[in-house]
C-alpha cells in the first residue's frame, strides 16, 4: 500500500484532466443556460458556435504566427482570442437580426425556435467546414507543461509523476476570471440586472421599461464570448475538429440541465459533475488501485467501468436520471 503514489496517480489521470474538462463544459453550459434564460429556447447551434468562434481564433493565431507575434510561454491563441470573440459576436448579432428576431416578434412556440437553431447550426457547421475543413487542427504553441511528469518525479522522488499541461492551467485560470466577470456583470451592473429581471419575469421587466432588444443584444455578445473562450480552451487542451464540437452538445446540455436550465451557478456545478463522472467512469483504475489496496486485493483487469468510447453515454445516463427524479435540475432552474 502506497497512498501517496495513489493520490498522485489519481490527481494526474483523473483530477487534473477532469477539472480542466469540467471548466470547459461549465463555460459551454453557461452559454446554453443564458440563451435559455433570456431567449427561452435550447440553442442547438451552441456546439457549432463554439467551433465557429474557435475557427476564427485559429485563423488569427496562424496569422500572428506567420508574422512572428507570440505570447512567449503562453499559447498565441490567447492573443487571438479577443479578435475571435468580436468576430463571433458580430456573426451572432447578424443571425439574430436575420433569423431569430422575426420569431421573437411573432411569439412562436419554443420548439419552433429550437428547429430554427438547428438550421443555424447547419449553416455554421457548413461555413466552418468550408473555411477550415473538417479535419483535425492543432494550434497550441508555447510551453507545453507547467510541470512535467519527469520534473515532478525528480522533485518529490515519488514513482508516479504529476503532469500539468499549460493548457490545463490556462483553462482553469481563464474560466475563473470569466465566471467572476460574468457574475459581477449579472449582479452589479445595470444591464446585468435588467437581464436577470427579464429572465425571471418578462412581463414585469417590460413593464418597468427594460428594452428587450438591448437585453437580447447583450445576451448574444456574452454568449459569443463564452462560446469562443470555451471552444478555444477545449481546442488548445485537446484538438480542434468540427464534428467533436457537435458531439460536445450532449455533455453541454446535460451540464446545463443537471444544474437547472437558466441557472448560471447550476451550469458551473453541472459542468464539473458531468466532467468528473465521465472521467471516473471511463478511467482504468488499475494503477491507482494497485497503490491504494493491499496486494491481495489488487485487481487483475483494468478496473475500468466503461470503455472511453462510451463517455457520451455517461452524460446521457446522468441526464436521464436527472430528468426522471428532478426535472428542474439540482439547483432550481426555470423549466419543468
Amino acid at each position, binding site marked *: 500500500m502506497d497512498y501517496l503514489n495513489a493520490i498522485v496517480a489519481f490527481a494526474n489521470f483523473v483530477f487534473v484532466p477532469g477539472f480542466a474538462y469540467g471548466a470547459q463544459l461549465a463555460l459551454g453550459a453557461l452559454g446554453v443556460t443564458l440563451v435559455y434564460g433570456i431567449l427561452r429556447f*435550447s440553442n442547438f447551434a451552441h456546439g457549432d458556435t463554439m467551433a465557429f468562434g474557435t475557427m476564427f481564433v485559429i485563423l488569427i493565431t496562424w496569422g500572428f504566427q506567420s508574422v512572428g507575434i507570440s505570447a512567449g510561454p503562453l499559447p498565441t491563441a490567447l492573443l487571438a482570442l479577443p479578435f475571435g470573440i468580436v468576430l463571433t459576436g458580430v456573426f451572432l448579432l447578424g443571425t439574430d437580426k436575420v433569423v431569430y428576431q*422575426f420569431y421573437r416578434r411573432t411569439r412562436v412556440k*419554443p*420548439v419552433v425556435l429550437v428547429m430554427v437553431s438547428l438550421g443555424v447550426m447547419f449553416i455554421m457547421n457548413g461555413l466552418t467546414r468550408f473555411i477550415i475543413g473538417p479535419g483535425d487542427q492543432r494550434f497550441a504553441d508555447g510551453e507545453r507543461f507547467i510541470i512535467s511528469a519527469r520534473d515532478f518525479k525528480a522533485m518529490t522522488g515519488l514513482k508516479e509523476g504529476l503532469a500539468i499541461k499549460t493548457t490545463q492551467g490556462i483553462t482553469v485560470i481563464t474560466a475563473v476570471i470569466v465566471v467572476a466577470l460574468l457574475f459581477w456583470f449579472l449582479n452589479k451592473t445595470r444591464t446585468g440586472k435588467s437581464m436577470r429581471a427579464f429572465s425571471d419575469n418578462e412581463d414585469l421587466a417590460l413593464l418597468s421599461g427594460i428594452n428587450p432588444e438591448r437585453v437580447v443584444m447583450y445576451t448574444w455578445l456574452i454568449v459569443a464570448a463564452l462560446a469562443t473562450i470555451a471552444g478555444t480552451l477545449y481546442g488548445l487542451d485537446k484538438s480542434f475538429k468540427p464534428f467533436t464540437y457537435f458531439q460536445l452538445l*450532449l455533455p453541454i446540455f446535460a451540464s446545463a440541465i443537471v444544474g437547472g436550465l437558466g441557472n448560471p451557478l447550476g451550469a458551473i456545478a453541472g459542468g464539473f459533475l458531468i466532467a468528473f463522472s465521465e472521467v471516473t467512469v471511463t478511467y482504468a483504475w488499475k494503477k491507482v488501485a494497485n497503490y491504494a489496496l493491499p496486494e491481495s486485493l489488487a485487481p487483475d483487469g483494468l478496473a475500468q467501468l466503461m470503455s472511453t468510447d462510451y463517455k457520451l453515454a455517461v452524460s446521457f445516463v446522468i*441526464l*436521464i436520471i436527472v*430528468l*426522471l427524479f428532478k426535472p428542474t435540475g439540482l439547483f432550481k432552474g426555470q*423549466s419543468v
Partner: protein
Amino acid sequence: MSMRNFLLFGFVAALIIGTGFLQSWNSALLILNMGLISAIMALGVNIQWGYAGLFNVGVMGFVALGGLASVLISMPPTTEAWAAGGLRVILGLILGAATIVAAILIWSKMRAGKTRGFVVAAAILLGFIIFRTVFDGGVAAVEAVDPAATGYLGGLNLPILISWPVGGLLAAGAAWVIGKTALGLRSDYLAIATLGIAEIIIIVMKNEDWLGRGVKNVVGLDRPVVVPKEIDLQNSPSFVESAASWGLDPTLASTLYVKGMYALLFTVVLLILLWLAQTAWNSPWGRMLRAIRDNEVAAEAMGKDVTARHLQVFVLGSAVCGIAGAMMTTLDGQLTPGTYQPLRFTFLIWVMVIVGGSGNNFGAVLGGFLIWFLWVQVEPMGLALMNLITAGMADGSALKEHLLDSAAHMRLLTMGLVLLLVLRFSPRGLIPEK
C-alpha cells in the same frame, strides 16, 4: 387530391424520369428506391411532428436499429461463436437487465430516505460487477471466433422481409424508453434526449463487435425472396431472351429488373403505411391528437391523457423510422455503422417534412422524394459550380484546391438555408395541412 398536389407529384416524377433519360435508368431507379425509403422516414417523423408536435432529433438512431434488425434476423447464426460464449453473453445481458429491474423494485418498495438511496446504489454497483464479469468473458470468446470473417453471434437465418417489422419493433422499444423519461416535461427535453440516444445507439453499434461486427461491417445480407440475384438472371435463358426482345443488354436488364423489384416492394410498404397513417389521421384518435397539439391545456381539461397520447404517437412514429431503416439496410445488402451521420439520417429527414408540409402525410411523402432528389443531384451541381468559379484561377493554386475540396460541404449550407427559408417564408410547406 387537388390539381396543385397532382402537379407537384407529377413534377417530382418528371425529375426522376428526366434523370432516366439524361443520365441513366439505373441512377433514376436508385433515386426512386431511396426516395421511397426517405418518404417512409418522413412519414414517421410527420406522425410525431405533424400529429402531435413532438420534436424528435434522433431519427438516425431508430433507423440504425432497423438496420441492426436486418442483420439479427437474416444472417446465419455463427455456431462456433454461440458455442464459445453466446449463452454467456445472453446471460450477462439478462443479469444486466435484472439489475435494473431489481433497482427499480427496491426503489418502489422501500420507504423513502437515505437508506433507500444507499441500498439502490449498492444493488446497482453489485449488479454491474456481476454483469461485467459474466458479459466480458462471453464477449471476448465470441469476438475471438474467426474475427476476420465473423467474430459475432450472427442472426436467426430467417427471411429478411421479417426484419422489416422487427426493425420497427426494436425502434419502438427504444422510443418507449426515451418517451417514458422525456415526455411530459418541456418540449426541448425530448429533443435533447433523442439527440443523445441516437448518438449512443451508433456508438454501441460501432463498438459491440459481438452484436453486429461493429465497424468491420456485415456484408452480403440476403435479398427478399422476390428479388433475384443479377447473375442468376443473366444465366437464365428466358430472361436473356425477353431482355433481347426489349432491345436490352442482359447485364443492364438484370440490374434494372432487380432495382425495379425493390421499387415495387417499397411502394407496397409505403402505400400500406400511408393508408394506415391517413386512416389514423381522419379517425377520432387523429382529431384528439390535433386537439392536444393545438391546445394541450384545453385537451387536458377535457380529460385527455396528454402524456400517454404523446408516448403512443412517439412510439408509432419511431417504429415507422425503424421499418424504413431495415428496408434501407436490405437494399444496401450490408450494415455499415460507420456511415450513420446525423446530417444524413436525422436532419435531412426533417428538411423533407418541413419542405413537404408538416401535418400532411402526402406532403411528407412528396418532401421525401423531392429533397432526396436534390440531395443526390446538388453535389455534382456544387462541384460544377466550383469548377466554374475556379476556372479562371491558376492550376495548382492553394485557393482553387481548397474551394474544390470544400464543394462537398456545400450540402450542409444548402440544407441549412433551405430549412431556414422554408420555416420563415412558407412554414406550412408545399402541401399544407388541411
